[in-house]
């Protein structure tokens, strides 16, 4: 147990055990899977048409936004070239589906249906449509476990989108609460501020929304302000998640940090 907790020596063992247990997971997932299938199957034509129209409209909207984004990205690259700094190359995503199996209720873990065989690796960031969900913690060949950002042993480096103040958001064990650590009493942070990943530590890519500040409590007797935030991702409702993979390590980061350096947000 100590070995498992302190080092990663037992990862292969877990990988094998996980493979052996995959059928159990599939069986447990089966009832909800079939009910989903049935619901899809017996949808009326009208419902499908409506859904299709709605999705088409949404798609158009996103396309329009994406056009603007392309232009902005090119501009960004140009500006960065002027500043002579490295530009982080694009990321590719893998879509995985949640398996509805219950895990240990005292840790915030999720089971997804993609594993090592699909290229999932330990520490890979996991997002949903609204924000960062967590990172891959345990990998099996056909499935993996994701540790949510609200798990008490998880911390994620963030910055305030408005002014770039950096902090670390620590999980509380409560599904809709994060704590920001080490923010001085006089720092410029307000309720409603958007927190995005800062990219420090090199595990989470920069700029993804994480949470929104809920409350800032300042106690003059304490050195730091007590800041709580609400995660943006639907941590308990999402069906599908995105696994982000960095295509190319940015030049600077690769030069600065030796590989294998334990990063700030290591899961445990």
């Amino acid at each position, binding site marked *: *147990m100590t070995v*498992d*907790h302190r080092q990663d020596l*037992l990862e292969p*063992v*877990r990988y094998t*055990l*996980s493979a*052996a*247990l995959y059928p*159990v*997971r599939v*069986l*447990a997932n089966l009832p*909800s899977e079939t009910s989903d299938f049935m619901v899809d199957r017996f949808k009326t034509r009208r419902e499908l048409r409506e859904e299709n129209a709605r999705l088409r409209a949404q798609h158009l909207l996103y396309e329009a936004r994406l056009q603007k984004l392309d232009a902005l990205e090119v501009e960004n690259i140009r500006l960065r070239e002027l500043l002579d700094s490295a530009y982080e190359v694009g990321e590719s995503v893998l879509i995985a589906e949640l398996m*509805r*199996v*219950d*895990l*240990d*209720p*005292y*840790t915030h*873990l999720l089971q997804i249906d993609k594993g090592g065989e699909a290229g999932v690796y330990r520490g890979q960031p996991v997002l949903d449509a609204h924000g960062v969900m967590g990172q891959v*913690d*345990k990998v099996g060949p056909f499935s993996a*476990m994701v540790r949510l950002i609200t798990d*008490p*042993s998880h911390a994620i480096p963030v910055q305030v989108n408005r002014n770039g103040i950096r902090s670390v958001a620590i999980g509380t*064990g409560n599904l809709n609460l994060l704590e920001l650590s080490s923010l001085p009493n006089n720092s410029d942070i307000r309720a409603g501020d958007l927190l995005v990943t800062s990219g420090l530590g090199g595990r989470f890519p920069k700029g993804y929304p994480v949470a929104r500040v809920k409350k800032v409590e300042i106690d003059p007797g304490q050195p730091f302000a007590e800041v709580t935030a609400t995660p943006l991702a639907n941590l*308990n409702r999402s069906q599908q998640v995105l696994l982000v993979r960095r295509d190319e390590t940015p030049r600077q980061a690769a030069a600065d940090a030796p590989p294998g350096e334990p990063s700030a947000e290591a899961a*445990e």
Partner: protein
Amino acid sequence: MTIVRHHGGWVILVSIIIGYLLTVLPLPAEAEQLRPDWSALIIIYWVLALPQRVGVGVAWLVGLFQDALVGTLLGAHALAFALVAYLTLKLHQRIRVFPLWQQALSVLVLLLLIRLLLYWINGLIGRPAADWVFWTPALIGTLFWPVVFVFLREIRRRYRVQ
């Protein structure tokens, strides 16, 4: 030493797999923390019924797989199950002759012991302490014990597991 022919091993295996299924079957969020330790109940039954076949080693393996299944520290459930299997093995001759409700009481103690070990291990690796709900699965498991016992006994007799 009399030679006892072992057969019906697959029945034990299937019952353990069913235990795993019940362990991960999705439940509503409120009921999730009340779920009894199904694998523990099943292990205790088999150790009571067939102490010469199912012992500490099997319990340890079952616990190890359970750890991989629910994502706890590898070895936590293994240790707890092995210890409980050992105690059951020591006491099986006494527990066997108890009436069902007294058996359920002994099972309560064993299940509480599992919880206690898991609680300690959680504390050791620095996770926040759980609240009182953490202990309820042992109670609920005790309530389920007569059902598990009678059901598995019927199965064991029908398939003549020895």
